[in-house]
């Protein structure tokens, strides 16, 4: 059975590329481009991996991460944060918030597929 990836990203061209790459890597991809909808999907659809942009309309990535980590349904959900905000304090804030992997834009396609695969294969309690 294919692993399910929730892609929370509002840049349509990046979504298109990532969707193509992830489907080629045999993942099942669903996309949300709004913060509130992304949180709802993360809590209710229990994907195998959440790829989370920081600058999302409605609710930013850090707030989504905080709520994901405090909800029983999603507290162990592997999260890859993907952002153009790569300053030290952004990285520290993400790690403190409980992100599993922090990646900055621009990214290499091979790196992101490798990271998502690692998270999807990680055994969950």
């Amino acid at each position, binding site marked *: 059975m294919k692993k399910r990836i929730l892609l929370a990203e509002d*840049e349509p*061209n*990046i979504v*298109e*590329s*990532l969707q*193509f*790459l992830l489907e*080629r890597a045999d993942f099942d991809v669903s996309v949300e481009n709004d913060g509130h909808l992304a949180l709802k999907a993360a809590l209710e659809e229990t994907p195998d991996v959440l790829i989370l942009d920081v*600058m999302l309309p409605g609710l930013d990535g850090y707030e989504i991460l905080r709520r994901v980590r405090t909800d029983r349904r999603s507290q162990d959900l592997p999260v890859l944060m993907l952002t*153009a*905000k*790569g300053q030290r304090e952004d990285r520290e804030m993400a790690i403190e918030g409980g992100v599993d992997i922090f990646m*900055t*834009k*621009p*990214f*290499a*396609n091979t790196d992101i597929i490798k990271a998502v695969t690692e998270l999807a294969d990680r055994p969950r309690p």
Partner: protein
Amino acid sequence: MKQRAELTLDRSIVGTRIRRRRRELGLSQTELARRLEISPSYMNLIEWNKRQIAGTLLRKTAIALDLELADIDSTSENRLLEALDEISHLPSLGALNIEDDQAGEFIGRFPGWARAVAALARSEHDATALAQALSDRLSNDPFLGETVHRMLTRIAAIRSAAEILTAYQDMTTAQRDRFYAIVDEESRILSGVGEALAAYLDKADEPTSTLTPIDEVEAMFDANENRFEAIESSVPKIRHRLGETQQLPRQEGARKLVVEYLRPVITEIIGLHPQIETNAARDRAQNALIDYGVSAVLMPLADFEHQAATHHYDIEALADIYAVEIEAVCLRLTALPRGRNTPQFGYYRANAAGSMIRIVGHEDLTFPRYAPACPLWVLFRAQQSPEAVIRQRALFPSGARFVFVARARNTGPTGFGKPRHYVTDMLAMTENDARHTVYAPDPSALVEEVGPSCRLCPRQNCDHRVEDPLAD
């Protein structure tokens, strides 16, 4: 760190100059003492700066040495002395063991070298301030932050699509065309973002350029030393009309007059100042000049100058005398003509979040525009004791000493259960200038070590540091 001796500003170097001149003329100390009708031992004390000399004796000495009074008067040298004293206590020069007690002798014997050292220190101070402004701009400028974010996002889209085109040869033609289109579209957007950034940086390269409306208005005030003669000279023509607005509170009545009669003057002032570049700054400048006009109506400059000196610049006493708010007094103090015994004041207003909402800067006080200032300033502490006037004796890493006077006030409606929204008004003056005010600190008063901002502060062991310094 070297223990700093208390600077005595009255410590004169007049004696050194008298000694040098006497020797040039080939006079003995005894002979000069005889001509001045004082004892040789007293003459000796004067020449070695152990006794002050002033008044009649100073004038007689100038005549005896064939000098103008200004040649041996020590006002400018005292300023130089103060500058050298600050330099000798710069933390970065601490290891050099500078003979700070010899500064007067140095100025007296080598005035040109002394001025050169002070000029170099001033130049270094200005360069540091510029470096801070540029650093603050890079790390905190919202436009730059947003633009960099947009560029990285566009580059991410281009790179990912380009890698797909290269790595996946088995794509359908439709898929291939779609990714080519993404590269094309994103490249165009990236070009536009890059051009906007280049135009912005091109403007920022101008050393006098101003980047926010607040900066533009402050530059206009700076260019006028915070005083607008066109308004001052117009105010006497309308002040008598204040009686016509008796139905309004005094301040509102003055505002009505200014808006009604001084608008053309204000518009002309703004038009004459190239510092005001944007519409937002024009609106701010207009409001700031209306405030200025209100102060000018309620606190006529000549009278205010007299009252301020009489009451030793006590902001509460002056607020009572003119029945105005303390912040109006603070702003009016910044407009006083700069004179020999008139302190120079800077004015800073901050809200509860620590954001600066009004600055009429003091030329010797480096203030970060785009980054948080040092949290140890009383400006950010006064809200713990609202409505109380609090004084702080502040020592900067450069050795510069300032006296800060701050008071927090509620700006919203009051009433049980209503939240208070405080802003803080702060006056800044050098400790030397503070001697002319009620805020002159007792020499034994606590001196608090503060900084301009973490980025520029070399105090490595400060418990309140939140950012690394620019240079370790």
